[in-house]
């Protein structure tokens, strides 16, 4: 029998998502090179900000600026990025807790080499040159200078 035929298909979903008062404010903030969190009734600042407190269900609306620097609280090293990753060279995916926040956000750290990565390291944001209302308007984090 001959080689089986390989069939390829591509599914595309062009989403236009309205962002609302919290996610919209966060992404607006990134355009202005500011990182916003949101304060819970217990006084903790959640980053990235949610419309609600996931522990209590309280509606939240007190946006607070955090950062701009942050601390890596855990990380992994990606040697071979996929086409969907934010960087096309080896990088770290990390949990980064911006200064003043009680929680961490997942994002890329462009450290150049795994040897420059460590838990507890200080990082600073690198901003996307032309913002487009997406999370990667914060292009990635990089080791703090």
């Amino acid at each position, binding site marked *: 029998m001959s080689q089986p035929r390989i069939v390829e298909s591509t599914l595309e979903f062009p989403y236009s998502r309205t962002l609302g008062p919290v996610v919209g404010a966060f992404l607006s903030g990134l355009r202005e090179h500011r990182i916003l969190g949101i304060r819970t009734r217990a006084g903790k600042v959640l980053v990235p900000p949610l419309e609600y407190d996931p522990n209590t269900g309280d509606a939240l609306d007190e946006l607070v600026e955090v950062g701009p620097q942050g601390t890596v609280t855990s990380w992994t090293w990606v040697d071979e990025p996929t086409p969907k990753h934010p960087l096309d060279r080896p990088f770290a995916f*990390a949990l980064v807790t911006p200064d003043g926040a009680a929680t961490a956000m997942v994002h890329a750290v462009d450290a150049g080499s795994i040897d420059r990565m460590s838990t507890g390291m200080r990082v600073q944001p690198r901003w996307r040159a032309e913002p487009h209302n997406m999370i990667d308007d914060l292009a990635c984090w990089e080791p703090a200078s």
Partner: protein
Amino acid sequence: MAATDIAVVGYAQTPSTRRARESEVQLLVPIVTEALQRAGLDRREVGFTCAGSCDYLTGGPFAFVSNLEAAGAWPPISESHVEMDGAWAMYEAWVRLQHGDIDTALVFGSGKSSPSKPEEMWAQQLDPYYLAPLGVDPASLAGIQARALLDAGKATERDFANVVVRSRRNAKDNPNAQVAGDFSVDELLAEPYVRAPLRKHDLPPISDGAVAVVLARGDRARALCKRPAWIRGLDHRIEVHQPGMRDLTTSTSTALAARKAGYDGGPLDVIELSSTFSPQELILRDALGVDADANVNPSGGPLAANPVMATGLVRIVEVARRIVEGSASRGLAHATGGQVLQHNLVCLMEGD
């Protein structure tokens, strides 16, 4: 108060393979038939059918409708579907049986991961604002979780490798496993990282496969099966989605689900965990409080075969089969959904 007289009375599964030539429905047809035959039940007698699968994984909108053909859905039957692991389809069927008006149910879970690029596709499971656009893949999140475990001093990379060695050794006795064999910890630790501190063997294989279960209630269960695997408790709990907003080194939801399912810490002859990445077995053992010498994943677990959307229901079958066959009296199965153990289900089963 949940009824406790519902049991697994029939089951069947396909071997897991890297790339099945058959369509997903073709994988399902023989095992649905086999599970019903094992229970001695005609498919027209089934009171309720529930399936678990993922259209994104298959790459076909409404692929789950085709899968229903494996149950023989004409004339129309009473059925439902969850876009979740088949273990949650079983949860729905278990709840449905408690209405008391029917006494049998058919459940199946199926998935072909081979057509997709799982590392790209699964990002769509995540928060569409903060995570999906970054293409965050399951292995990267598991790598972050593994690092947190190391940093907390709760495990070492050698512990991860030990889980893999035991899983692959156990899988030698499982004809449905995809990855099996004898390996040494030292040779595994010499392998390169793919998502440091995780190596390729800390990740599950990419698998195609399917599994089916027949449930029955009360006297019907006793009539259909000599030694039914009674479901003593079944519960699932979920945690916050954002990975940076919870402690990744523990599984609070697993511990709570186990307690709600009635697990009291007593002895278990068999434990099957959906520890998709090796460090997760350590987290789940800790959450359940099982002994170091407990019989965990005698099938090899998801590190030996990971037919996504069936993996959790396979865990239930691996425990139920040992009870039905008489080699175990009490066992616990665990299924997981979402990423890095966000959503967890625990099923406690016993023989008479």
